[in-house]
């Protein structure tokens, strides 16, 4: 079957579409013909060219990774695909789709299937269902618009504990490292923590599931030999298992792989010894989740970490020659204007430059987080009741502790302190 998967970044340069590439690898192993489109402002495409592409390929399925920020453009491209390839089905997955409220389905006439389960399993089920003829029952792991127009939801199949059950897009040639200045790697999924602003635990579960060290090393080797050798690990907790990290770093040294790596992890997982090993293996930047420098605010958000330990880890990492990025948010429950400004001072006091990911952003209320499910319980007041049902409040809220004006003041303070004009790299 002919499938087109679309990764769309309308306001930024392209990023390795690792999640869609995982799905493409699954479909490739099943013998389907897949085109993986990476559309972004950094690699211009024309509407006419895109129309011609759909008309020539005539896909039977077009899939998108949906975020709050690209849903409008996804809908436009979905309409285009349906115009040019009549009969093709449209599937959306990704964070916006996984937790999409049922009320939103009717407001998305361009969409036929919304994925809720693990992508690799869902895509296989969707393709099999489309090949099987009319959609008369919901596809496992999706909300499906049946051929009679009614939406029906089916439970997701259980996901494997061992991620090596899935094929690798790097090893199968779905992704060519030569295409990317920086390759995104995903070695594990899931998070055992319960930060109420984050969707990761709900999306992937509390248990961390991982690829084997050998599989990751094989992927790194391909990227190091064929690409620029710059890696960006998207694992939410890169160093959750110290033994595993050691094995990975030793493997990089043993295979003599020259790589430069960006990783994100929790400060309480970093020891001076591990930092030394990371630096020796080619890690250039460690990103740490600080969120707030005020323990009371962290506690209210369910983030069980001591800011002082983050500061210590940051300083130790800087002393080890690594660059450090601190993720932080403002507008958190219980946070007052002074608290938010104290976080800015704290980041600076750690010696961390305010640039890239160290530019704070306002808390975003996305579907799937505990805060979005019940904002009032967290003291958050969404400002709009006229949003389409497929959009979450995002940053359009005030809190019991900070007005819109306060939030703007915090934004201005961060921007004034930024050395790169407040540009974020990752999110």
């Amino acid at each position: 079957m002919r499938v087109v998967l679309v990764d769309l970044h309308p306001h930024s340069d392209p990023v390795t579409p690792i999640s869609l590439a995982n799905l493409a690898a699954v479909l490739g192993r099943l013998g389907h013909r897949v085109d993986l489109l990476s559309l972004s402002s950094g690699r211009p495409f024309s509407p006419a060219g895109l129309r011609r592409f759909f008309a020539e390929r005539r896909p039977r399925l077009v899939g998108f990774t949906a975020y709050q920020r690209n849903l409008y453009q996804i809908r436009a491209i979905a309409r285009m695909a349906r115009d040019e390839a009549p009969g093709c089905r449209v599937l959306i997955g990704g964070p916006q789709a996984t937790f999409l409220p049922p009320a939103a389905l009717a407001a998305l006439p361009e969409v036929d299937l919304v994925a809720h389960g693990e992508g690799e399993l869902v895509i296989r089920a969707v393709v099999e269902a489309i090949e099987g003829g009319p959609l008369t029952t919901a596809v496992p792991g999706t909300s499906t618009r049946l051929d009679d127009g009614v939406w029906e939801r089916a439970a997701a199949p259980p996901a494997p504990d061992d991620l090596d059950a899935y094929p690798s897009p790097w090893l199968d040639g779905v992704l060519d490292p030569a295409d990317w200045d920086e390759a995104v790697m995903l070695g594990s999924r899931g998070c055992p923590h319960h930060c109420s602003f984050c969707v990761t635990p709900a999306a992937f579960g509390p248990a961390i599931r991982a690829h084997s060290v050998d599989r990751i090393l094989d992927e790194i080797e391909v990227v190091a030999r064929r690409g620029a050798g710059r890696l960006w690990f998207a694992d939410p907790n890169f160093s959750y298992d110290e033994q595993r990290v050691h094995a990975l770093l030793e493997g990089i040294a043993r295979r003599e792989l020259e790589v430069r790596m960006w990783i994100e992890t929790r400060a309480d997982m970093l020891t001076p010894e591990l930092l030394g090993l990371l630096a020796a293996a080619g890690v250039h930047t460690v990103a740490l989740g600080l969120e707030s420098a005020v323990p009371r605010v962290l506690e209210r958000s369910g983030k069980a970490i001591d800011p002082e330990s983050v500061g210590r880890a940051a300083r130790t990492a800087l002393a080890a020659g690594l660059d450090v990025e601190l993720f932080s948010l403002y507008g958190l429950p219980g946070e007052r204007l002074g608290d938010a400004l104290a976080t800015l001072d704290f980041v600076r006091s750690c010696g961390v430059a305010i640039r890239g990911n160290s530019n704070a952003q306002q808390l975003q209320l996305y579907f799937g987080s505990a805060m979005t499910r019940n904002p009032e319980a967290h003291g958050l007041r969404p400002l709009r009741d006229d949003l389409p049902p497929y959009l979450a409040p995002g940053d359009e809220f005030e809190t019991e502790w900070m007005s819109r004006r306060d939030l703007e003041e915090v934004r201005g303070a961060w921007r004034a302190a930024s050395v790169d004009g407040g540009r974020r790299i990752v999110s």
Partner: protein
Amino acid sequence: MTLFAPGEPAPVAWLYLDRDTPDRRLAERLDLALPGCAWSCHVVATGGDRDGLLLGSVVRHLEREPVAVVHFHQVVDGGLAGAPQLERLLGTAERFQTEAYRERTGARLVPLPILEVAAGGDPRPTLAAAAAAAARLARPSLLLWDEPDQPTVAAAAAHGLRLYLGSPATAGGVVEILTDAHVFDSVLDRLEGPLPLLAPCRPHELVAEGRVFGCARQWRRGLSRAGVEDRSEPEWRPDERLCAGCIADTVAGSARSVVANRRPNEGRELALRTSAALVDAGSPAAAAAVARTAVELSVAGPPRADALVQEALCRLAATQLPAADQALLEAAAQGADPGLVAYHRARVQVAWRDDIEALDRFAEALELGAAVVAPDDLRLEMALSHIRLEEWAEARRHLAGIDGPSAAVAFNLGVCEVNDGHPERALGHLDRALELGPPADDLGRVRFFRGFCLSRLERWAEALADLGLAVGLETPELAHHNLIGVCLFKLGRHREAAASFEAALALDPGSAVDWANLGLNLERLGETGRATASYRRALAIDRSIGFARDGLERLAARPSGPPP
């Protein structure tokens, strides 16, 4: 495999529409071009679009393609006369802004009015109109034909307005001003990115005088690609050969605009780096003009001194030697490192072939100490000056003062020794240079001099081997062919020797000794007619070549017949 721009590349991000083509024609062109343009593109209408035909075309495109975004830059009169056009633009954008608010996305029609203040006009009402437009989510800018006064600059800065500056000297009018800004912005974006500074700027197309041009530079040169009515698929590729010159001209002419828009530091940084890129690209004269802009944008003291040194180096590379020396003197007055100034002034003298003066400057640099020039580098430069002056002992003295092993030092010691009549010692130095591994560019020189030493020692076959290697490593010159010819002659390989001397003469037909050498080999080959002619050519150029005269006499005395 991942695809980034399916179907076809979509390079046209900007369309410039000049006022000298009827709006109806331009609207037809827009209807044709927009679907093939990048999904997020810019349309720049310089003519006011009085009847709204161009805006209508844009709206049709946006309605047809909901994925598209158009940034519509429209030059309108900043006074009352332009109010209707401004209102139409802002009013049309409102529906897209409403859509953007509803969907929490960016507006798909972005209004960017360029409010024009005529020469002699009062900018204040226009500033007020710009502020009002900004309040309606437009991103206005001002186009001024007079030098802006300080209150205007301050007000523009306060409102975040960009200033485009024209003058009576702006031959290309509004299009020239806006396309200069386009090129400048394209290059400025690269200060932090991976793209080379001299790569083609943001893709654009220009329609003027009823013709379509691939870029602003092509328009200035009158290189149009098609008529505006042409419906065939145009070629969108820029002519990259023009890019470096275009970028150089634009950055060199940017100082006034950069200052008015309060971005002197960025402008200076861009000028310095563009200048360096132009030197690397082999355009030192253009680089010097750009470096001059960096000087103009630098505050007094070390920043200006650095820019002046950069300018001097460009002028040196462009062999604009008096200007290079002047820039260095100005740099010294701005507090540049005196040792560095002395060093570069010495290099200027070297370029002037005044090694005596250069030696004084190098000595001064050595005495003053330059932070970024190692004393050993200065000693080597001094040795080279002495070598050019054929002062072998002095050259050796400086080379001896250099610490540590160096292929360059060993090579130049070899040069001194062979020229001073010590080929055996020279050979030792050259072998040491080879051991130390000279830079690839110098390897051919080392081989040549090795061959030269061996020839002095009459080790002809070995000499020939080194000279053969030298020819493979550097572009053969007269000396190569001559020396190879001599070796071959000594080895009795007259046919090959003759060919070598012919190769030498192909490079310099005025080389008397090579005519004589050719004659000698032809004589040995029994080609008496050609040998006689060669001897005669040699003597016609230089009557003092005794062996040519002897050869002629021998041939004249010889009875005709086969060679002995």
